[in-house]
């Protein structure tokens, strides 16, 4: 009998993932636990499996073996459609770069998260607001002048501005977990520090757990805890 999923945000045991049958495991993590409200930094070199791990945690990829609990739900056992729903309701995601859908406006890019998630809409409504107002509020808190930028093609925003829009999208409707895949690698040092401070403050204000991966270890001090991926992940040889 497998143990029930606990209240920890992430709990993995014997987690294995390989892209294709016969290829070596890219992810082989015996144990990983992240507690609620933590801001965790996962450091790892390029090709080390950071993005793959985040895809597993976000329920986009399904583990090849092992147990994976995210926010109390057994992701490994969850059917595909429910994992997609789960992600849209509970997890915000920020990519390394090019986070915005080019044909949507600034506001629509943020609202995209609400479109696929009734739960986010309900949470905004419960707080006595509506999605558009909430999106504008978040963008303003992230230092974007919505009125001035509203009419602008999103592809014309600066990289830093685009990343902040992506954070607003991740945070809208108060998801429980925000996952960032190297969101600062395209920013210069000043912009990066400002971005990290904002990200930390806003996820904390939203009451979300923050999971942040990067190959750049110098970012570590900005977080509560650092996990070095190569310490816990031991990718294997090809199996017959």
């Amino acid at each position, binding site marked *: 009998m497998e143990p029930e999923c606990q209240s920890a945000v992430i709990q993995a045991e014997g987690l294995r993932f390989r892209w294709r049958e016969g290829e070596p495991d890219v992810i082989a993590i015996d144990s990983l636990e992240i507690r609620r409200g933590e801001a965790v930094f996962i450091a790892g070199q390029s090709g080390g499996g950071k993005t793959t791990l985040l895809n597993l945690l976000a329920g*986009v990829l399904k583990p090849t073996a092992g147990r994976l609990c995210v926010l109390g739900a057994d992701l490994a056992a969850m059917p595909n459609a429910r994992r997609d729903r789960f992600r849209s309701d509970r997890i915000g*995601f920020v990519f390394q770069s090019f986070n915005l859908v080019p044909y949507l406006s600034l506001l629509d890019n943020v609202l995209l998260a609400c479109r696929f998630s009734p739960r986010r809409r309900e949470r905004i409504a419960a707080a006595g607001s509506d999605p558009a107002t909430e999106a504008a509020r978040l963008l303003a808190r992230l230092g974007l002048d919505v009125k001035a930028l509203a009419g602008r093609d999103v592809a014309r925003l600066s990289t830093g501005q685009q990343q902040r829009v992506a954070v607003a999208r991740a945070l809208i409707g108060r998801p429980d977990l925000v996952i960032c895949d190297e969101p600062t690698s395209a920013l210069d040092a000043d912009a990066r520090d400002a971005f990290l401070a904002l990200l930390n403050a806003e996820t904390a204000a939203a009451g979300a757990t923050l999971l942040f991966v990067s190959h750049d270890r110098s970012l570590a001090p900005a977080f509560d805890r650092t996990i070095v991926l190569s310490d816990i992940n031991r990718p294997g040889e090809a199996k017959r």
Partner: protein
Amino acid sequence: MNAPLLSLALKSLINRKATAILTIAAIALSVTLLLGVEKVRSGARDSFANTVSGTDLIVGARGGAIQLLLYSVFRIGDASNNISWQSYEELRAWPEVAWSVPISLGDAHRGFRVVGTTAGYFEHLRYGRRQALSFDAGQPFADLFDAVIGADVARELGYVVGDRIVLAHGAGAFAVQSHDDKPFTVFGVLARTGTPVDRSVHVSLAAIEAIHVDWQSGRPPRPGQAVSAEAARAMALQPKAVTAVLVGLKSRMAAFAVQRRVNTYADEALLAILPGVTLQQLWDAIGGLEKALFAISVMVVVTGFMGMTAVSLGALNERRREMAILRSVGARPREIFLLLVVESGGLAAVAAAVGAAMLYGGIWLARPFVQSQFGFHLPAGGLSAYELALLGLVVLAGCASGALPAYLAYRRSLADGMAVRR
């Protein structure tokens, strides 16, 4: 569940305006062609079937049945032989025959065929649903040099009752020998029928004799041998032959028997046809062409969609990032698939609507031209059930051509997750 998808698809298409518009234009044109071929086909068929009705048999000199139908009814081509007046006299006296209308072809007036006939023509000829001919102005010819013209002749040449016209020998617009010594007076103008009658000039059989009275073996009179119009009036203008005879029977049951009797007539090689049967044969003969046209227009539509698929495949790589973002906010791979299918289907639906609109606009503009050049009426009407079904198929084909890129995107988002590298 798919309201967000619809709005995404719409915005994505608007974002790629130029490609979307070009794609729509290409497919809309092909749809116009497809519907147009279909329209012409059904219009031609109706027009065909409407050309002759109420005539039980058509008799001509022995030759091809379709040829006989073509020259006697459609006024296309010429007879290779005539029927002697004597045979005609015998035939009309057969007990089964209720009425008979002889016609004599071979002359023209400014590109319109001249039909020598009897007053019975205006009485017995039927078109469409057994409608009789009627006069817009004037009445059947009375005098030797009276002519009754069809509606198109009157409209195109601007003739009214009382105008004088000159006939020419030989058919077609390039008839060289003019009968200018014996001018005719327009005595009646027929109401429009939508059949070749509209494009005919009718005179009496005697008039045909009169204008050729001084001709010898098909050649104009030599100088000094010409006979004036006044002198011609005094001569015996008994026709020696006619080109064909339209026959109405007392009982249609007798049609086959009479047909057999004509075909085995001993004194002269004759041919009788049942117009309905021969019309069907003619239609079947043209049917091959009609099917080929239809097949070509279907190919053109398919080409349009292949272009669309190619464009959409080409854009797929560029859109990997967009798909990854959609996945990250919770879109299911199935929804990614649907998004692309809806985009293609939407383009196809707009193109189908634009194509249909262009066709109807085109018909509206082209109708007078087609009526005058080809003698049939382009039906405007609404979209027939068949045409609606065609348009539905076009939209389905649009969705289908979106399916390949959509499937690739679907596979990719399953296989790669959000791990998109650039």
